[in-house]
């Protein structure tokens, strides 16, 4: 192999690896990102736009030789910031669709389960309403499968702070739900 072909082959091989990683991340994280953004209060269409923008940013980041460490929290952070920018630019507060999730759970359940669990989920919906913004975000990111360290990277806070917020939020929910 000549030196010229080697110098072309290496960047191309790196590009293929980056491309494959980006595709894997897209398959793995597209739905969790969409759910997270909808939980933050974006409409499904807005969430789709933000996720597309986030993966476009990922492509630029990898193409420019950016770090490939902690890509999950990187993507969530980009999506989180874009969602906040949209919130600020439209000057509106995020709605609280998680409470609607309570109704959706009951809609999908069997009639017996509805009878048994309706009251429990209604209590949960009321309890979620009492959560502070940071508590809600931490719990949604935790439900998305992120570790405390990753949640801290997304929200720009220390891991120990995340642990405190999660503990406070879960205890608050347990207390309000009376379980």
């Amino acid at each position, binding site marked *: 192999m000549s030196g010229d072909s080697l110098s072309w082959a290496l960047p191309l091989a790196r590009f293929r690896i980056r491309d494959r990683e980006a595709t894997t991340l897209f398959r793995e994280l597209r739905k969790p990102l969409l*759910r997270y953004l909808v939980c933050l209060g974006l409409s*499904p269409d807005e969430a789709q736009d933000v996720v597309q923008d986030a993966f476009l940013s990922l492509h630029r980041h990898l193409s420019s030789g950016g770090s490939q460490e902690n890509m999950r929290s990187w993507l969530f952070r980009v999506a989180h910031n874009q969602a906040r920018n949209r919130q600020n630019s439209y000057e509106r507060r995020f709605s609280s669709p998680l409470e609607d*999730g309570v109704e*959706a759970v009951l809609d999908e359940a069997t009639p017996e389960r509805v009878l048994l669990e309706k009251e429990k989920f209604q209590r949960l919906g009321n309890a979620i309403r009492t959560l502070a913004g940071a508590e809600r975000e931490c719990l949604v990111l935790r439900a998305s499968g992120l570790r405390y360290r990753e949640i801290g990277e997304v929200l720009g806070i220390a891991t120990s702070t995340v642990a405190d917020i999660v503990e406070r939020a879960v205890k608050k*929910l*347990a207390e309000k739900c009376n379980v």
Partner: protein
Amino acid sequence: MCEYSGRLIAWLDGELPDEEATNVEWHVGQCVECRKAVSAYEEVSGAFLACYEAQMVTKPKPHPWRWAAAFSGLAAAAAIVAVILLGQPPAEKLSFHPPSPPSPALAPIMAASTRIPVRRHPVAVPLHRQWISEEPVVEVALPADALFPPGAVPKGFSFIADVRFQQ
């Protein structure tokens, strides 16, 4: 309150160092109060997860231009059908002009020439139906400034690329 109560949720989440997690696990086995608390945290975390997973994420709405293309395709198919039907010599009109009685030898040829072929299923319609029903597998939004030099495209324009895989 038990001294371990502040570490139970982190332990459930697998966030404690190995040694500390072992200690908490042993303690939970001994302490009724902590076992009850762990059970409550698990239940409420599971219910929260169910609410999170129930968040409905609808499919992206088709873009207006796609519908416009689909309807223009259907309109084109309808126009083709109309041209085919209207372009044929109308049978009723011919009947107003009684032809001179053909000779018996020419009767089969005359019958064949007055028959109107009607295409009931134009070719274009199934193709367009198939195109409409396809959902994009991957949809990528590209900002205009990534494709064109600055100023070439008015601000706010972007392009959508649909990526489809064929079996």
